[in-house]
């Protein structure tokens, strides 16, 4: 009964921020690579928000944002613009964030889960990251009044961020996890972000609420609950499920008592796997959005969009299907080999050079998967050599093999009996015994055929 907790339907929407790995920041030429750098070493008048400085948009970041949109099956409106989102916070040097409000780069997309369920994507838009605050708390009393202070590191200020907002289509934590894995995989396939949650390249904020299931009001109804709870500070895939499950339980308990949970922002606490209240939103924030006057609107031409489309790499879903068909691989192998673009490319290159040695795609796949080959350590052509060599050096005289198999069958009469009853697993047992006797690895396919013959 996943997704339903004591008569409630769970409704989850997701906001994901993906930090792009462009060389320079969104609106200036500072390096966007801030991770582990000396604080405030990647700054200039623009990303420090100094008086008079102006933003100039990063063309590559905009193209990458549109690529993400295309990969998520979005429509790309021909007209788009940047807007200012006004609010005060010490990590926001201009007093506003340049973002997109009512005319984002991409709208109306979706991701299809394995179950066939479609998760709607409302929009994909471009914005800039904020600076980083470092809070220092020192309790010791000293002659100066206050030892508590906060430091600001502007290296992250202005790094390009893409925000991907879904419809409230998720019903379980597992769906959320699957969506996130797919999204991460797509973004990495596009090679536009490292999408590393631990490093903060990918950040997510689920909105969670529960809906009571009654007879009169079916759970499939479109009405949303009168509240939602946003959860922040989830910085690992492992915590997504924990945070969501905790919230479902917490909210259900409140609803059980006949009350409505508060509309609020909560923070996930790793230590206790729970969430705590951070900020209660009584009303929506008024960000006083208005069109960014420092940046002219973006108007695409058909040609530009077509050119972007033509430069899109093959995406995971398509590649999985192609691998199944083109290489006659089972789905499980296809999934493993397409996990990332590097592995998939490696496999295809290996298959291609394996052809000269009469190796089938399946043989290459097996070797790659079973031996857990580290593709960064060995070139595909060399790998093929290894496969060929391994099957050659372990060539055992078929007569000798036959002898051994016969002996095993003789010593273990119940094996033949079990096999006749339909117990196919006995073959694995015999293979194990042969290996044990020979003390070396051999081509199991050859051996299997031989055993089957003897069992007849």
């Amino acid at each position, binding site marked *: 009964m996943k997704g339903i907790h004591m008569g409630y339907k769970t409704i989850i929407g997701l906001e994901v921020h993906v930090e792009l790995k462009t060389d320079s920041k969104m609106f200036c030429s500072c390096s966007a690579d801030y991770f582990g750098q000396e604080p405030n070493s990647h700054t200039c*008048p623009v990303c420090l*928000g*100094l*008086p*008079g*400085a*102006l*933003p*100039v*948009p990063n063309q590559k970041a905009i193209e990458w944002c549109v690529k993400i949109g295309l990969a998520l099956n979005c429509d790309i409106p021909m007209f788009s613009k940047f807007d*200012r989102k*006004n609010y*005060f916070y*010490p990590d926001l*040097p*201009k*007093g*506003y964030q340049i973002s997109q409000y009512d005319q984002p780069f991409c709208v109306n997309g979706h991701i299809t889960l394995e179950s066939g369920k479609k998760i709607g994507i409302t929009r994909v838009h471009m914005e800039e990251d904020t600076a980083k605050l470092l809070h220092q708390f020192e309790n010791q009393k000293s002659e100066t009044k206050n030892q508590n202070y906060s430091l600001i590191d502007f290296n992250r200020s202005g790094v390009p961020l893409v925000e991907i907002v879904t419809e409230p289509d998720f019903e379980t934590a597992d769906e959320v996890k699957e969506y996130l894995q797919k999204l991460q995989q797509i973004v990495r396939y596009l090679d536009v972000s490292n999408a590393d949650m631990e490093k903060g390249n990918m950040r997510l904020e689920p909105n969670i609420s529960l809906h009571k299931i009654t007879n009169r009001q079916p759970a499939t109804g479109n009405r949303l609950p009168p509240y939602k709870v946003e959860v922040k500070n989830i910085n690992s895939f492992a915590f997504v499920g924990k945070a969501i499950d905790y919230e479902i339980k917490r909210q259900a308990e409140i609803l059980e008592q006949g009350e409505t949970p508060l509309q609020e922002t909560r923070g996930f606490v790793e230590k206790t796997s729970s969430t705590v209240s951070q900020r209660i939103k009584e009303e*929506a924030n*008024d960000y*006083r*959005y*208005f069109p960014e*006057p*420092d*940046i*002219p609107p973006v108007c695409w031409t058909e040609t530009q969009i077509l050119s972007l489309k033509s430069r899109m790499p093959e995406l995971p879903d398509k590649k999985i299907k192609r691998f199944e068909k083109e290489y006659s691989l089972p789905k499980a192998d296809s999934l493993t080999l397409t996990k990332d673009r590097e592995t998939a490319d490696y496999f295809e290159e290996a298959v291609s050079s394996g052809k000269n040695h009469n190796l089938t795609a399946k043989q290459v796949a097996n070797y790659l998967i079973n031996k857990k080959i580290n593709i960064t350590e060995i070139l595909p052509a060399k790998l093929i050599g290894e496969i060929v060599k391994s099957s050659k050096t372990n060539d055992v005289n078929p007569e000798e093999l036959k002898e051994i198999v016969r002996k095993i069958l003789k010593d273990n009469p119940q094996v033949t009996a079990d096999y006749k009853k339909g117990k196919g697993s006995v073959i694995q047992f015999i293979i194990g015994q042969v290996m044990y006797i020979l003390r070396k690895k051999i081509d199991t396919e050859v051996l299997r055929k031989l055993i089957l013959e003897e069992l007849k």
Partner: protein
Amino acid sequence: MKLSHLSIKQAKKGLKEKQFSSVDLLNSCFEEIKKRNTNLNVFLTLSEKEATEQAKKADKLIANRQDLPLLGIPIALKDLFSTKGIRTTAASKVLDDYIPPYDATVVKKLKNAGAVIVGKANCDAWAHGSSGENSDFGPTKNPWNEAYIPGGSSSGSAVSVTAGMALAATGTDTGGSIRLPASFTNTVGIKPTYGRVSRYGIIAMASSLDSIGHFTKTVEDSASLLNVTAGKDELDATTPPVEVLDYAKDLNKGVKGLKIGIPKEYFIEGLDKKIKEEIEKAIKFYEKEGAQIIDISLPNTEYAIATYYIIQPAEVSSNLARYDGIRFGNARETFGDEAKRRIMLGTFTLSVGYYDAYYKKAMRVRTLIKQDFDNAFEKVDAIIAPVSPTMPWKLGEKVNDPLKMYLSDVFAAPINLAGIPGLSVPIGFIDGLPVGMQILGPHFSESLLFRIGQHYEINHNWHERNPYGL
């Protein structure tokens, strides 16, 4: 004639012919500054040391027969222009001790052209105002009559030129802030097409309206200065890659055959009778010189000031958010009354529930105002209109009536809403105070405006007068 009252053209000739040095020229400016700055309150910061070094360097280059467009010419900068290592306050106490770590693009261009930076000129704080009285460092006085305001917001820049403290000065024009003080001080003021000159490094007032221009004594100087400052800037996304022509090339082509439009909405009841007479004289002059005078209408003019006072404060409220008290040392209560007024107005009109009724509607009217001009320029080459409905007023006269102050922008602000260029040229004196007219043209038609202005100037020579008869 005192050196500091020379035009750029005259000074360049003198420098080239070794009649005087750049240091002499600079010293002449500083003599005037030292004599009158305490009283007139023109400069907030002087960069005498740096200027002297620049002048010496210029003299060396001149001695080596090198030439640059502004080599050795002393220029003042409105205190909105970021200058590396030189205090830049926007005439607000909020930035009382702010020293920028970088030069605005225009400052860089001026320096590269050999200009000598005299100092930072007073203005209305954050360029909010039409009189110069909103400066947190006290108002600038009009040297033609010190009881009067010189016009704003680029008050100090205009006065520095007319009082012979610099040969030219930069300014910004968001709703008349160059053309109005030019008209009130007998100087030539150019508000170029929006985006013609980079805004990078110039403290923003209202980003979609801010135009970067300058004050000079003559039209020709104005054109040659624009030759230096204009052009696409990689650091300002609103500067289009429109070619920079030699703005001085067509100066002396006259006005024969040009169609000049006179918009009836600019000659309404509130217009000072004497100003009207002076403008009409100028129009007659052009007619006599062979221009065709055509009556036109800009029907949405009456909505311009309301539209302007919605869009401008909205952008101001956002642009001033960065002065949050964390990084520039002074808290937000340090803002003066006018800045606070605009922050509140803008915050209100951008708020949920009001945005559609105010900001969005104002943007629609702005489009209509633009279309008015587009339609007019199908019939005429240029337009002539008054800059201000009134003559300079007395210091203190309007400070308690912000609305009255706002109305002085009534003929200037529509030009910013449309983004077209405007040139203010002196056309005489009324009761001892100067008055100017504005010449308007289509986007990027600055060459034409200079040509029309030049023809008036060389036949009237008002620019030869200065308040001290020097």
